């Protein structure tokens, strides 16, 4: 008998009861992945329904909680389907093998009677039948609550005896608290080192008291930030860690350098957390991407046994990476410690969200290539950036904002580089997917992070694909070739070619664009092993840069929900339009100054292009779609601006001012 391959998530969480329980006549599916607004729980419910042979109406997806469901680490990197679908299929197969299966009249009772300690790794799953739900666009399970305005988000929680908390963050990253009032009317002041906060029964009073506290607190600030107008030089002057990707002989003939600024997550909801200290257990509710790592980080920061901390996931607005969620949870923990047995809901301000959440780092990269007879014969790429990962616990320290401000602090660790095997960070997609002859690729991680940086949707892939794909167009121009023909001449992978050709055909590539418009393409395979995505952008560049159309083509392997996949690709592309054409975190030597929607503007309804999404079927295994469009969209926009204006913008964002500066530089 051959032993079937055990999915890694099952090997790590082998008990049946970790994945499946029965309650209220429903199969309750527990997964360690969390809903971030991406629709993952609906897609996984589809997989579970097929795996168990049940209708969707008999499935209930249970929010992740430490110590209850499977521990699946963080929900990140477009890996949720890849890591979870095989596990749910295994669970379903085992359950059908152990019971009479869905044909039995009392199937759910039989499932309920199964021993929750059943070891899933020791049983052979029954084969999976033909899919019923997988491949169909099932309506999102969470949308009715949201569209009907029901309580759903973390700041909607109203447990009995709820208190409201606020934190007065320092005015700048290097600031130290010298003096603050010890008491204020109607609220409780909580202070520990430079951590300063308030707890009170009524939110309006807490908000008013916060302003009094702000006025009456005295801080010493330090100039710890680089010059925002000289970031490329600053990056290049720093001590770096060498991150080799491919060692080979260097190329030199043609070169260009690109850069991107710091970007903010800029979620529509500010981060929030809820915590309650009971006698034995600290309960925490958080919209964290990783409840397990958050539990360990809280325990470490406070010297608690991890078993005393329970973290449960509750949704908040869209999450695009490591934002302030974990920090807000820890804020709530610190404030709730002052009022045992009372739940404390702590919500950040908009300014905190835009200035204290981890940022996507500024980066610069230089490509050098040799070209002979219209073909690339050598390629060298060096990318310099602060790191992309400082998630809780990632560097062995809690990595929680408030923990760095305590009297006995746990300083925030510099952001690190994840291993290339798991996709890398600075080096994500640094290696070109094209056949370019002699190849040399390296990342250079700036070891200090004066502005806190961490993971944001696609990490370094956004910038690297922008740089690589901009340069591909520059080479096509130099050698007098059509940008799409030039790409196809350097890639033989049939899935890549199919996606590029689909985007070209669907966008009308080759036909004359309307007056004053230009078209540009960007293409990548996310992490060089995930989804293929090509984007054609059509941009109008007269007095302003107006993005008119995006044509997105992608191959994400087996599609669980076509509509969900299209939604993720479209949303990713539109968000990338915002990053690429509008966004830049502003700061002086002390403080971040882009702390409102006026100083950190994002794309508005009137600026959103027409987007069409085309899925290319390949029958390959499922990979995530949520991060595939970020880089290709940025490059497509830059290439379209170059096509429309004849001017190459190499430093993001692609604003009117950047085009004027590029004209002046030529």
């Amino acid at each position: 008998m051959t032993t079937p391959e055990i999915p890694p998530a099952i090997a790590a969480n082998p008990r049946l009861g970790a994945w499946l329980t029965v309650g209220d006549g429903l199969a309750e599916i527990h997964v360690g992945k969390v809903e971030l607004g991406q629709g993952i729980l609906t897609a996984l419910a589809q997989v579970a329904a097929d795996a168990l042979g049940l209708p969707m109406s008999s499935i209930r997806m249970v929010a992740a909680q430490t110590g209850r469901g499977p521990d699946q680490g963080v929900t990140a990197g477009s890996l949720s389907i890849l890591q979870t679908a095989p596990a749910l299929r295994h669970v379903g197969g085992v359950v059908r093998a152990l019971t009479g299966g869905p044909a039995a009249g009392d199937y759910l009772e039989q499932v309920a009677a199964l021993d929750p300690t059943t070891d899933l790794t020791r049983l052979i799953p029954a084969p999976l039948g033909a899919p019923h739900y997988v491949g169909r666009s099932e309506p999102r399970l969470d949308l009715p609550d949201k569209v009907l305005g029901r309580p759903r988000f973390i700041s909607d929680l109203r447990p009995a005896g709820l208190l409201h908390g606020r934190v007065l963050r320092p005015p700048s990253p290097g600031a130290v608290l010298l003096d603050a009032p010890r008491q204020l009317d109607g609220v409780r002041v909580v202070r520990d080192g430079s951590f300063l906060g308030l707890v009170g029964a009524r939110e309006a009073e807490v908000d008013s008291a916060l302003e009094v506290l702000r006025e009456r607190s005295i801080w010493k600030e330090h100039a710890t930030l680089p010059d925002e107008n000289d970031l490329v030089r600053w990056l290049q002057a720093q001590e770096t860690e060498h991150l080799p990707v491919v060692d080979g002989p260097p190329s030199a003939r043609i070169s260009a350098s690109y850069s991107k600024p710091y970007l903010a997550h800029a979620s529509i909801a500010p981060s929030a957390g809820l915590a309650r200290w009971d006698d034995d257990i600290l309960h925490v509710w958080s919209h964290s991407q990783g409840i397990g790592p958050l539990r360990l980080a809280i325990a470490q920061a406070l010297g608690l046994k991890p078993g005393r901390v329970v973290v449960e996931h509750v949704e908040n607005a869209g999450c695009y990476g490591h934002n302030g969620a974990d920090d807000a949870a820890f804020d709530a923990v610190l404030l709730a410690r002052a009022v045992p047995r009372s739940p404390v809901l702590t919500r950040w301000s908009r300014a905190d969200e835009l200035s204290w959440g981890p940022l996507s780092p500024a980066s610069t990269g230089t490509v050098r290539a040799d070209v002979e007879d219209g073909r690339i014969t050598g390629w060298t790429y060096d990318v310099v950036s602060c790191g992309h990962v400082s998630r809780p616990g990632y560097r062995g320290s809690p990595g929680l904002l408030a923990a760095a401000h305590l009297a006995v602090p746990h300083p925030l660790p510099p952001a690190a580089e994840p291993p290339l095997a798991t996709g890398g960070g600075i080096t994500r997609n640094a290696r070109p997917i094209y056949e370019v002859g002699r190849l040399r690729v390296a990342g250079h991680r700036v070891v200090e992070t004066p502005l806190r940086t961490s993971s944001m949707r696609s990490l370094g892939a956004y910038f690297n694909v922008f740089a690589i794909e901009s340069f591909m167009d520059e080479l096509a121009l130099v050698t007098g070739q059509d940008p799409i023909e030039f790409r196809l001449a350097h890639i033989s992978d049939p899935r890549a070619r199919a996606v590029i050709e689909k985007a070209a055909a669907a966008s009308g590539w080759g036909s004359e664009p309307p007056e004053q418009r230009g078209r540009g393409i960007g293409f990548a395979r996310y992490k060089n092993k995930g989804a293929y995505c090509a984007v054609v952008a059509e941009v109008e560049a007269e007095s302003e840069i107006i993005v008119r159309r995006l044509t997105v083509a992608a191959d994400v392997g087996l599609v669980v929900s076509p509509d969900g996949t299209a939604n993720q690709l479209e949303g990713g592309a539109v968000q990338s339009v915002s990053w690429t054409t509008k966004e830049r975190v502003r700061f002086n030597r002390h403080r971040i100054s882009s702390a409102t929607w006026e100083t950190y503007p994002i794309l508005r309804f009137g600026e959103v292009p027409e987007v069409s999404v085309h899925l290319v079927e390949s029958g390959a295994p499922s990979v995530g779609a949520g991060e595939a469009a970020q880089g290709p969209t940025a490059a497509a926009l830059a290439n379209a601006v170059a096509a429309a204006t004849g001017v190459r913008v190499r430093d993001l964002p692609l604003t009117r001012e950047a085009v004027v500066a590029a004209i002046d530089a030529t």
Partner: protein
Amino acid sequence: MIRLNVNGHVVDVEAENDTTLLTVLRDEVGLVGTRFGCGEGLCGACVVLVDGTPMFSCQTPIWQAAAASEITTIEGISAAGEPHPVQQALLDGQAAQCGFCISGIVMRAVALTSEHPRPTREQVTEALQPHLCRCGSHQRIVDALTRMA
């Protein structure tokens, strides 16, 4: 004590005059469907109808709300649990990702469609200019609202 008419019900609340309508709705009246996004009138997540006019509830002091004859929140537009046509259109179009911005957008669209029952793309886009969405659901939202019968 301040008296408000919210969704057809008279409610008396204890609040300072300069407390915002948003805070009163969420914390005193217990209607949390109206969301806090920025507190500065710059994102649209908190829009409610004050005598039929879309207002940023985070910028509306309670004394001003008390002077209105009716405040309508997202909880007040779906009769007997049946979604309002605007909500049904958004659900039919699966027109949201995280859905945090959608309460304010729904209320703006309710006001728009009471004036223009079948709004054009341009009218919808123009009406939604004060609203921010970070997930990139804009086109789906506009499509859904434009398709309304």
